[in-house]
């Protein structure tokens, strides 16, 4: 491991200071494209997994083969499952050369003021970004409280009982085709256990504790927040993440026990060749609070509907999502709220922007089971369409098996009002600057929920998108 990274990386938009790094074991593996039982067996062998995990993977693989491609959402016909690497050992990772990167991505890095070492990591030029800065004290502090924060492969080895108790319980392999695929070939991801009553004050960030596998194509994340505990977890990054692989299919499972709180923030900005098909679900128990904050800027097609199952009375669920669909992009994103118990409440706020022929769809489900009386749900989706070539759709599904509930749904679609543009332009702003300001304001209710450095980068990125210099 080299230690080229400066002790304190200078990052233009704030400090990603909570960095971690875990060593990757050196496996001997020869990667090849395509998916079959052999590949899945090899993956499991290399990782020296227990038999139950191999069985789990193989069963999932069968389900994957059986399930048809979803007919709704985005266009998936160009996705060729046999033309994809399903497992790549860290040291075998294809390192892209800096020169071969698309111009727009390089430009964006420069405009965002991302430091050299970090740029190379994001661009896939460097397989790992070394950041061991505050690893010591923070990790020790968490460990003293009994918090487990590690990558998912290590968790399977080091905490086998805890792992097995929860793994695959929130999202079974049979949930959907892509959850099955992930279950068969998963690698990396984060595993977090927060013990009873432990409150983690600062957001835990996956960004710079990423080792090569963490932000892989098929990462698997499992978070257990025990009774009365709380955590804010942040993954992804606002800067464009270049991947030469065309499929990203993650699974995130979260269990929020009684009186616990969990907020999970994601910013996704994959390069525009990536299919981003992610299954995220949380189970929220009595008087707990689960929040998804989800931003989707990149990818060719994203299909992602973070779900919350409200399992016991008093559970609350909230999803805030932003999608920005630019030229050549389809963001099919939304949320699912399933009220399984009485006196539960949920809220969905979705904001989408489409521009340059991009398409943004809100797809959401609010479901109330028949015993779940006195439930409340509030859904607000606002779409902003910036030009006539772009498109926005709303697919709100509501299934209610109970009369005694309060469900509200509001949707609006707007264009930038001429009067707003005139007002800002009459104060010296160019049309581009004025539009960017209106868009930034449109998503402000969401952006202000992000950690500071993400918020700043997000706004900067919106400005770049509006200039048309990106993607």
């Amino acid at each position: 491991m080299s230690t080229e990274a400066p002790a304190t990386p200078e990052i233009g938009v704030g400090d990603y200071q909570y960095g971690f790094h875990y060593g990757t074991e050196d496996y001997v593996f020869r990667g090849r494209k395509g998916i079959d039982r052999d590949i899945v067996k090899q993956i499991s062998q290399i990782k020296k997994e227990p038999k139950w995990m191999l069985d789990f993977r193989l069963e999932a693989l069968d389900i994957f083969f059986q399930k048809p491609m979803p007919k709704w959402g985005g266009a998936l016909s160009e996705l060729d499952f046999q033309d994809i690497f399903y497992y790549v050992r860290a040291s075998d990772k294809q390192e892209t050369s800096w020169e071969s990167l698309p111009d727009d991505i390089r430009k964006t890095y420069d405009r965002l003021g991302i430091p050299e070492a970090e740029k190379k990591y994001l661009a896939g030029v460097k397989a790992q970004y070394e950041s061991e800065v505050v690893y010591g004290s923070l990790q020790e502090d968490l460990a003293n409280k009994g918090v487990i924060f590690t990558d998912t492969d290590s968790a399977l080895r080091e905490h086998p009982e805890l792992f097995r108790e929860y793994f695959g319980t929130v999202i079974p392999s049979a949930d959907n085709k892509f959850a099955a695929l992930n279950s068969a070939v998963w690698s990396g991801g984060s595993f977090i256990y927060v013990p009873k009553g432990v409150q983690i004050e600062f957001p835990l960030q996956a960004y710079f504790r990423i080792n090569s596998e963490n932000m892989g194509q098929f990462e698997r994340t499992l978070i257990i927040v025990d009774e009365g505990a709380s955590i804010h977890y942040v993954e992804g990054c606002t800067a464009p993440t270049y991947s030469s692989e065309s499929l990203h299919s993650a699974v995130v499972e979260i269990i929020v026990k009684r009186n616990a709180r969990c907020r999970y923030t994601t910013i996704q900005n994959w390069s525009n060749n990536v299919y981003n098909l992610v299954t995220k679900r949380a189970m929220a128990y009595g008087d707990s609070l689960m929040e998804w904050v989800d931003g989707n800027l990149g990818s060719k097609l994203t299909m992602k509907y973070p779900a919350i199952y409200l399992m016991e009375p008093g559970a609350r669920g909230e999803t805030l999502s932003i999608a920005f669909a630019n030229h050549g992009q389809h963001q099919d994103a939304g949320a699912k709220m399933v009220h399984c118990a009485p006196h539960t409440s949920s809220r969905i706020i979705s904001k989408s922007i489409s521009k340059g022929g991009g398409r943004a769809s809100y797809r959401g489900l609010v479901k109330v089971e028949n015993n779940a009386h006195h439930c409340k749900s509030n859904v607000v989706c606002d779409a902003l369409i910036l030009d006539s070539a772009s498109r926005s759709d709303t697919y709100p599904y509501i299934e209610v098996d109970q009369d005694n509930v309060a469900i509200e749904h509001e949707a609006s679609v707007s264009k930038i009002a001429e009067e707003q543009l005139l007002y800002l332009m009459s104060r010296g702003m160019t049309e581009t600057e004025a539009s960017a300001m209106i868009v930034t304001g449109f998503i402000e209710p969401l952006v202000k929920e992000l950690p500071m450095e993400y918020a700043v980068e997000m706004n900067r990125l919106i400005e770049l998108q509006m200039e048309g210099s990106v993607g």
Partner: protein
Amino acid sequence: MRLSKKVRDGMSSLLKIIDLHVSVEDKPILHGVSLEIRQGEIHALMGPNGSGKSTLAYTLVGHPKYEITSGSIEVDGTPLNELDPCERARKGLFLAFQYPVTIPGVKVSDFLRHAVTNVRNPERKDGESLMPMREFRKELKQKMEELGMDTEFARRYLNEGFSGGEKKRMEILQLAMLQPKFAILDETDSGLDSDAVRVVSEGVRKLSGPQMGVLIITHHERLLEYNVPQFTHVMLAGKIVETGDAALAHELHNHGYAQIRERHPVEAAEEQSRQNRPETVGVATAVAK
């Protein structure tokens, strides 16, 4: 070139409106308006509803719906007709809107920092750096205090949830920060209680001076009491039919427009026929919805 610019800098700027004809959605509204405003002068523009006062204001600032069919607008001999609202603002034009719009999610301070940076650096390109935060904050705080505004306003979203008076004060704050060469105040005193009118009127008085030419569009007298115009223009049916001094404004305020209509029967007849026309396009659309 260099010499002539120097010569101009030594003089006060001149906003010249020459025989301006303007249509909105192919409907002619202004029928040849001419007006000259020098930096440091205060002009009042009065006239009954629908006479074209706001049309003139929107046309000056470059509203895309207001089409100049003939005539021109110039600042120091440079025509503005083809410039967009942004470029006009950077040349020193400012309109205090009668109905300022709400921009949700955009903080007053962010908006003003962009605006001030652009207007003070007319050559600025998108993405170039903004006025330093500390310097900007200091200036903003000072201007807000001078206008008796709570600095809390800087953190609110632009005009969102503002009362009528707060919106108008926000326009005056922008005027104070942008220090334009020419300010057009479109009924900045309308819809306000007397306290708010006083605040706004005093604000304008503090801000105007030898560096600012002001065109005040108003129905009321208070704004003009605080800001006595050297010239008063009366508009009727899309034309300026009379020009006088402050006394004319006073007379109109006391006696209304009956005498003006008597003295200008042609325009009065045109005004009458405009009122008898089917409703304007804008209203018709609203009904259709």
